[in-house]
Each structure stands twice: as structure tokens, then as C-alpha cells.
């Protein structure tokens, strides 16, 4: 394996790194006046990176691993990276005007997003514990700074600090798990770990076909650390505070790209590295998913801040996605990817709508009660937000239903009927608070807080996501399903 080939396999990462470093120079000399230009170049870079990985989504060569098994550019990573890069690009598009109004527009912002995206790409491509950790920290460090980017705002500073402390704790837990796994399997390589855990073939970490206690501890600790990153219950406490405190464009980013990266990473670790010991972690996943669905739904009911509501909604949705992982079949993984893709669109649309909610002075409106009568003053915005809410609740004919549908279909096909039944019954609790937003916008008297005036970029993103989430989205089910199935299949062949 030559360096040239390895570098070519990670072309997207190359582009992101070089472009990031060059833009860093521009930022150093150009100062904050160059922010908008850097922002747009960063968006183009992300779109270019997405275009580079797109061809691999359809399958690609048999061996896509680079740098001696450190990295894999397979169809799975391509699928996740497309979502990551597009999510990050959309978040960047919506950023400049917001930060300018806050007086916090600085040239570092797009760079941090670029480097975070680079880290996220590494996370979903990692086939070695060290690559995994490098990618994870690269993303996290950028994210901590981004969360506290509006440093004059107390809430933002608090969010950054909270995120950092809890994120560091999670990284510690993850590292502890990794050291145990390394100690008992004798390798950092996912493939080697998979072989060592394989009880049926006398793997090194098993005794008479039974997993050794230490390796089991390692698996559980690693999954706990990852559960922090995907904000699954009971490791979700940081999410509402960080979502609320961080500047809204940053929240948009957090709700989309890092979520895809962390879930993708969890999928690869669970299904590939630990794929020979499914029973060791399946119960953990079942618990995480059901707890996330229920707590996410119940927690959202009392919220009056729309960003906090979206945070609980993301916890709730992660729960549904984890059902696909708990099923531990190729169909489950594929369903999870489909859900993830739809979820990214819903989040982008939802936050684009939140960003468009501003009062007369241009200050952001975050209180749900202030949305009263929005359907009369801003029918288009209210309609799109209502569609996103019904979609998040999974009510057909909106496209959000399809994500839930495929996940539950996978669970039923795998014979996990109790999981599917409890999960879907709990989704009714979730419907309650999504309905609340629609109720406020459509049934309540007008408050007149939200002023007119749109920004083109937000309007475009909101319109695009509304069209995707409309029943027209079903026309894409075949195409999306095939891509996700190809991506998921690459996790399962060892």
C-alpha cells in the first residue's frame, strides 16, 4: 500500500485540511473583515469534499482501507460524510448574519467548523482506536470553542464550559474502556479486536467461548463514553443546556453533523469491532434507546424554550435511531442510516425556522409562547415549522414517518416485538409536545412578537427541507434505501 493511494482514499480529508490551513493564513492576515469571504470558501470546501466522497456511496473498491488499517473510506463512511459535510455547510450558510448581529463575527468561526468537520470525517472512517480518538477529540475541541463562541453571552460561556467538562469526562470514560479493550484483545485495530472477541472461533479475549469480564467492562465503558457523545439517556444531561446556551447556528451544527459522526462511530464500533459479541452490548443499546425515547419525550413537555425543546427532541430521536442499532442486523443499520439522513434534514429545517424567528429589534425569539398566532402573521414560516414538527413526531404522510417506519420494520423483522411495541407506544408521548408547538402557532391568539423580514439563505434551507419532508420525499425512498443498504453492508463484511 503506497502513501499515494492512502492519500487518494482520504481525498476529502486532504482537501479539508489544506483548505483549512490556507484559510487560517487568510484569517491571520485578513482579520475579521474577511469573515464572510472565508465563510463562503469554507462552504465551498465542504461541498467539494462532499462531492469527492459521493462516488464511493455506491460501493467502491473491495479494499478501501488506508494507512495500514488506520482508516477506511468505505461506502458507510461516504454515506455518513455526505451528511456531515452537507450539514456543516448548511450550518455555515446560516451563520454570518446571526453572529454579525451579535457582534461576534470573527474569522475563526468557519475555520473551527472546517476542522470539526475534518474530525467528524475521521470519526466515521476510523478503523483503529487511535484514529477514533484523534477524530473524536479534533471534533470535540473545535466544538467546545464553538459552543462558547458568543463569549459576551453568559449562557454561551456556560454552555461551552459545561460541554467541555462533561465532554472531557466522557472522553476519559471512553479512553478507560479503550485501554481495557486493548489490554484484553491485544490490538487497537478494529478487525483484530473483532477476531479476538469472537468466542465461536476461540478469540483471544474469550475463555471457552465466553467473553472475559475485563473485555466486557471495556465494551461497556466504551459504549458509555460514546453514549455521552450521542446524548443518549442517561448520559444526556448536558444536551439541553448546551443547545440552549450555544449560539443558534452552532446548535444547528451540533444537532446535525456531530450527531451523525458520533452515531456513525458508535455503529462501526458496535457492529464491526464488537460485531462478534452482539449479546454483550445489545441490552445496553435496548436500554439506551427506550430510555432516550421516554425521557426525551417526557422532558420536552415542560419546556418553553424552543431550543431546549429541540434538544429533548434530539434525545428522543436518537432513541429511535438506537432501535436500529439494538437490532444489530444489516437491515437495522440501514434503517438507522435512513433515519439519520431524514433527521439531519428535519434538524436543519427546524433550526432554520428558529433562526428566522426574530422580533422587531432583530433579537432572537426563543420562547414558544411568543410564537402565538404565527400562522396568521407568517403563514409560510408557520406552515413549514408545523410540517417539521409533525415530521419529527413521525406522523404520516410527512417524511419523518419513513425514518420511524424503517427502524421499526427492522426491529419487527428481527423478532424484537416488545422493543418495537414499547418504542412506538412511547412515540405518542412525543407527539404531545410537537403538537404543542403547532397548537401555539395555529390555535392561540397572535402575540405579534415575531417580526417580518427573511434572509434568503434561511428561507432557501427551510424551503428545501420542507419539500424533502413533504410527501414528495417518499419518491426518494428507493434511492435512499439502496444507498443506506450499501453503506450498512460494508459494516458487516469482515
Amino acid at each position, binding site marked *: 500500500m503506497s502513501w499515494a493511494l492512502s492519500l487518494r482514499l482520504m481525498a476529502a480529508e486532504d482537501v479539508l485540511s489544506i483548505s483549512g490551513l490556507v484559510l487560517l493564513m487568510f484569517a491571520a492576515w485578513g482579520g475579521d473583515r474577511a469573515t464572510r469571504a472565508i465563510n463562503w470558501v469554507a462552504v465551498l470546501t465542504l461541498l467539494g469534499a462532499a462531492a469527492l466522497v459521493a462516488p464511493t456511496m455506491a460501493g467502491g473498491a473491495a479494499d478501501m482501507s488506508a494507512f495500514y488499517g488506520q482508516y477506511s473510506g468505505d461506502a458507510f463512511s461516504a454515506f455518513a460524510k455526505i451528511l456531515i459535510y452537507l450539514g456543516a455547510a448548511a450550518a455555515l450558510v446560516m451563520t454570518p448574519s446571526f453572529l454579525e448581529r451579535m457582534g461576534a463575527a470573527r474569522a475563526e468561526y468557519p475555520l473551527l467548523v472546517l476542522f470539526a468537520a475534518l474530525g467528524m470525517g475521521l470519526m466515521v472512517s476510523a478503523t483503529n482506536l487511535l484514529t477514533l480518538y484523534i477524530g473524536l477529540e479534533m471534533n470535540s475541541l473545535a466544538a467546545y470553542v464553538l459552543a462558547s463562541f458568543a463569549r459576551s453571552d453568559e449562557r454561551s460561556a456556560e454552555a461551552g464550559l459545561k460541554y467541555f467538562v462533561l465532554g472531557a469526562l466522557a472522553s476519559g470514560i471512553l479512553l478507560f474502556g479503550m485501554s481495557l479493550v486493548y489490554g484484553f484483545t491485544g490490538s487497537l485495530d478494529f478487525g483484530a479486536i473483532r477476531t479476538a472477541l469472537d468466542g465461536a472461533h476461540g478469540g483471544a479475549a474469550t475463555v471457552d467461548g465466553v467473553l472475559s469480564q475485563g473485555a466486557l467492562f471495556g465494551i461497556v465503558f466504551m459504549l458509555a463514553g460514546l453514549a455521552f457523545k450521542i446524548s443518549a439517556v442517561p448520559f444526556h444531561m448536558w444536551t439541553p443546556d448546551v443547545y440552549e446556551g450555544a449560539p443558534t447556528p452552532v446548535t444547528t451544527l451540533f444537532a446535525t453533523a456531530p450527531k451523525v459522526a458520533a452515531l456513525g462511530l458508535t455503529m462501526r464500533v458496535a457492529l464491526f469491532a464488537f460485531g462478534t459479541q452482539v449479546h454483550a452490548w445489545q441490552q445496553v443499546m435496548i436500554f439506551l434507546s427506550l430510555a432516550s425515547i421516554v425521557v426525551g419525550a417526557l422532558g420536552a413537555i415542560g419546556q418553553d424554550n424552543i431550543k431546549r425543546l429541540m434538544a429533548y427532541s434530539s434525545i428522543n430521536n436518537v432513541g429511535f435511531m438506537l432501535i436500529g442499532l439494538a437490532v444489530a442486523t444489516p437491515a437495522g443499520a440501514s434503517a438507522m442510516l435512513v433515519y439519520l439522513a431524514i433527521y439531519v434534514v428535519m434538524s436543519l429545517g427546524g433550526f432554520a425556522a428558529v433562526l428566522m424567528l426574530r422580533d422587531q429589534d432583530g433579537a432572537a425569539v426563543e420562547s414558544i409562547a411568543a410564537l402565538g398566532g404565527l*400562522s396568521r402573521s407568517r403563514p409560510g414560516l408557520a406552515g413549514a415549522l408545523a410540517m417539521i414538527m409533525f415530521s419529527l413526531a413521525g*406522523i404520516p404522510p410527512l417524511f419523518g414517518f419513513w425514518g420511524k*417506519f*424503517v427502524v421499526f*420494520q427492522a426491529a419487527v423483522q428481527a423478532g424484537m*416485538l416488545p422493543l418495537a411495541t414499547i418504542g412506538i407506544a412511547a412515540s*405518542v408521548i412525543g407527539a404531545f409536545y410537537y403538537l404543542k408547538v403547532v*397548537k401555539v402557532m395555529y390555535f392561540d391568539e397572535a402575540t405579534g412578537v415575531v417580526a417580518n423580514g427573511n434572509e434568503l439563505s434561511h428561507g432557501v434551507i427551510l424551503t428545501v427541507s420542507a419539500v424533502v419532508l413533504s410527501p414528495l420525499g417518499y419518491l426518494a425512498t428507493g434511492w435512499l434505501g*439502496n444507498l443506506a443498504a450499501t453503506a450498512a453492508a460494508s459494516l458487516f463484511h469482515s
Partner: protein
Amino acid sequence: MSNFPILSAMLAVPMAASLVCLLADAQRARLIALGATLVDFALGLLLWQGYQIGGSQWQFVEKAPLFAGFQWALGIDGIALVLIELSVFLMPLCILASWDAIEKRVSEYMAAFLLMETLMIGVFTAQDLFLFYIMFEAGLIPMYLIIGIWGGVDRIYASYKFFLYTLLGSVLMLIAMLWMVNFAGTTDIPTLMHTDFPVAAQRWLWLAFFASFAVKMPMWPVHTWLPDAHVQAPTAGSVILAGVLLKMGGYGFIRFSLPMFPEASAQFAPLVFALSMVAVVYTSLVALVQHDMKKLIAYSSVAHMAIVTVGLFAFNRQGLEGAMVVMLSHGLVSGALFLCVGVIYDRLHTREIDRYGGLSINMPKYALLFMLFTMASVGLPGTSGFVGEFLSMLGIYQLSSWVALVSGTGIILGAAYMLYLYRRVAFGAQKHADAAAMPDLSTREIVILAPIAAAVLWMGVYPESFIAPFRADIAALDARLAQAKPRGDAALTPGTPNRAAPAGEAHAALGGAATIKQKVALASEVAAAGRAR
């Protein structure tokens, strides 16, 4: 004609009109909505005319593999046909009824109604299990908005209750559907209707479907959303709710529960009967003491729908046909009654029964039509109500005379509360000056009510026009159910012949034995004939 995708067209017309309505102003939205519903009604008439009675079971079939995992598959049998006719017949009347009554946000209102029509037709035409589910569930959104935006005082509570009750019922059905598709390997409803699911699984599947349809129907004790929703919904909303949405539950039983899970249906029939008997007696009594007209009619709907479930689970043709006719008749009659309430509500803005009285003096035309629909609701011979209730009772009597007896009281109680309502509203002294000053029906109101009155009488005098299209489908369903048919208590049984010959008669020994043999043969012949019937 055979290649024209008429069902897709019937879905596309209101869908497109709904989008256009959103962008139009109030008056134009009204005209667009009326035009679109009339076009759909015309298409519905073409459909009826083109439907071949005695032709293949599924007609106007369209299939397009547009999606992953399920298909755009449409097609109708006679059962779906008559329910579609009911929907497209009621829709233009609903639009007319809301012409002046709805003043705020007219274009959104019309858009929601047209969307509703699309989804209702979609439910009755879907031939793919998941397409059906999507259409069935999607109806929640426009109905939630209709109740919540244009409803009365407690509209928000009612809209939540409606949404969450029905959603919880439906999601369990989705899991059952996923299991069935996984088992049978197809999403095609006609194929699934002939799939024999294992009996143990059938029970769970039946219960999951029941959870959904019982709420939609609605059956006691999950009926409580209905009176709330009805009272709070605008008149046209109530008409659609009572006229068509409730029929989705009955349609679900007849299309899914009965043919797909015949054994489980037979096992759970006592449960259905118990709930229906409670519903008939209890909700009729509740209706008797209502002060709110709409609530009274809402409770009477629950009682009538209980007659439908009793007829459906009678496992014979009379019961099934009766249930279908009750559904059609109730769709017309309860819709008309809600429209009648709407007429006086628009004048006095109250639904309190005591605020009216003696309307036959100042509103004779109104009193006449209201009388007709009251009688139809009671089930007077010559109106549509009689045909369905009689057939249902006939059907259930063959299975269980006790169930027939208790459900039969519903007809007596129905007469009580409806006539009592009519007496308080139309007869007696003119207690209130404002009620006495109300003008009689306007031309628009007559245009709305007269077609329904004609249909009610037509169905009462010559029900064959409506029964003929679905007779073969009911026969097919009856044949499918034969494998699980429970024994009725009304079949003729052979009597116990008196074996001991009268003492002292000399010739008893041989000749008597021969007579007994003959008697037994005769008795079993009679019994066989009884069973065959």
C-alpha cells in the same frame, strides 16, 4: 375509459385544489373548493357507472412501484365504492354548509377540507397495506387543525384528545402490519385477505388492529373523544367526522380484521358484543339527558356504530350487509342532523336545546326536513335507517338472541331520545322571542339538505341500488369467514323423540322404532336446512 386512472384523478383533484386554496383569497377559495368537490363528485358518479356489478372483485386497479417497501396501488371493490360515493356526495354539501358559517381563515379551512377528502378517498382505495396506513394516519393532521382552529370554546382540549387517542390506537396497528408483511412477504391487501395467519398470532394482530379501529369507530369505552370533538368542531367538520371518518373504523373491520383474522374475530366476538351492548344502552341513556344538541347526536352516533359492530361480527350475510347499510345510512342521517343543528346554530349561536322550541311554527320547512332525518335516525320503515338496522338485527339474532335483544333496545331508546329532542326543538310553545323570530331555510340550506333527504328516502325504499354493488363482496367475505363461524343459538335443533313408547300399546315394538327413525331423519333434515340458511 378503462385506461384512465380515475382513482388517482379523484385523489389528485382535491389535493391540487387544496394547494391552490392556500394561495387564494376567501371568496375564491370557496369557489375553488366547491368546484373541486363537485368535480370529484362527478368522477364518483362515473366510477359508479363504470363499476361492473358481478365483474371482477377488484376494479379500476392501478399499480405503480414508486416507493421502497410499498406501492402506489389503488383499486376498489363494492364496499369501497359505496363508501367513496358517500364521501364525494357529502363533501360539496360540507363546503356549502361552511360557506358563510366560516368567516376566519377561509382559504386554510377549505384547504384542510380538500386535503381531508383526498385522504378519505385514499383510505378507501388503497390496496397496499402501508399506503392505507399512511392515508389513515394522515387524516389526523387536517382534522386536528379543523377542530383546533375553527372549533368552539374547548377546542384545544378536544383536538388533543382526538389526536392522541387515535394516534395511540394506530401505532400499535403499524407494528401488527409490519409483522404481517414480514410473515406474508407482501403488502398487497387482496393477497393478505387470503393469507391464513397462525391462530396464536392472529389474536395479537386482531387486538392491535382493534386498538386502532375501536378508537376510530368509536366503541365504548374509547369513545370519549367523539362527543368532545363533535361539539367543538364546526358544522361541516362534524358532518365529515360523523359521515365519513367514523366509517373508516367499520371499513377497517370489514377489510382487515374479519377477512385477515377470521379465527381471532370469532374468538373475540363476545368482547365486541359486550362492548357494543354497553355502548348501545349506555350511550343511548346518556344521549337522553343531553342539553347540547350536537352532543346528543354525537352520543347517538356511538350507539349506531355499536349496531354496526354487532352486525359485522354476526358472521353472516345479513349482519354484514346490514352493517354496511347502517354505515351508509348513518353517514347520511347523522351528517344531515348535524347540518340541521348547524342551520339553527348559525341563527342563534347556541346549541342549547332549551333555547329553542316551537320551531315548527316559524320554520315549517326546517321542521319537515328535521322530522324526516329524525325518523331516519330512529329507523322508521321507508327511511334508510330501517333497512340497515333490520338486517343487522336479523343477522345477530341468528348468532345470539341475547345480543339481539339488548341491541334491539337501542332502537327503542333511539326513538326516545330523538323524538324527545324533536319535541323540545320543533314542538311546544315558542318560549323565546329570538328563537321565534328565526327565518326559515334559505335556498342554500334547502340545496344542502334536499339531496340528503332524497338519498335517505331512496335508500329506504329501494336499498337494492346501494346493496347490489357490494353483495358479491359480502358473499366472498362470508365464505372466507365460514371456516371460523361460531355456532349460533338460533339454529333449529332436532327435538328429543320420545323413545319410550306409550305403555300398553301392543304394536309399539317394531312399528314404533320405524317411526322414531323417520322422525330423527326428518329432524336432522330440518336442522341441516336451518344451518344452511
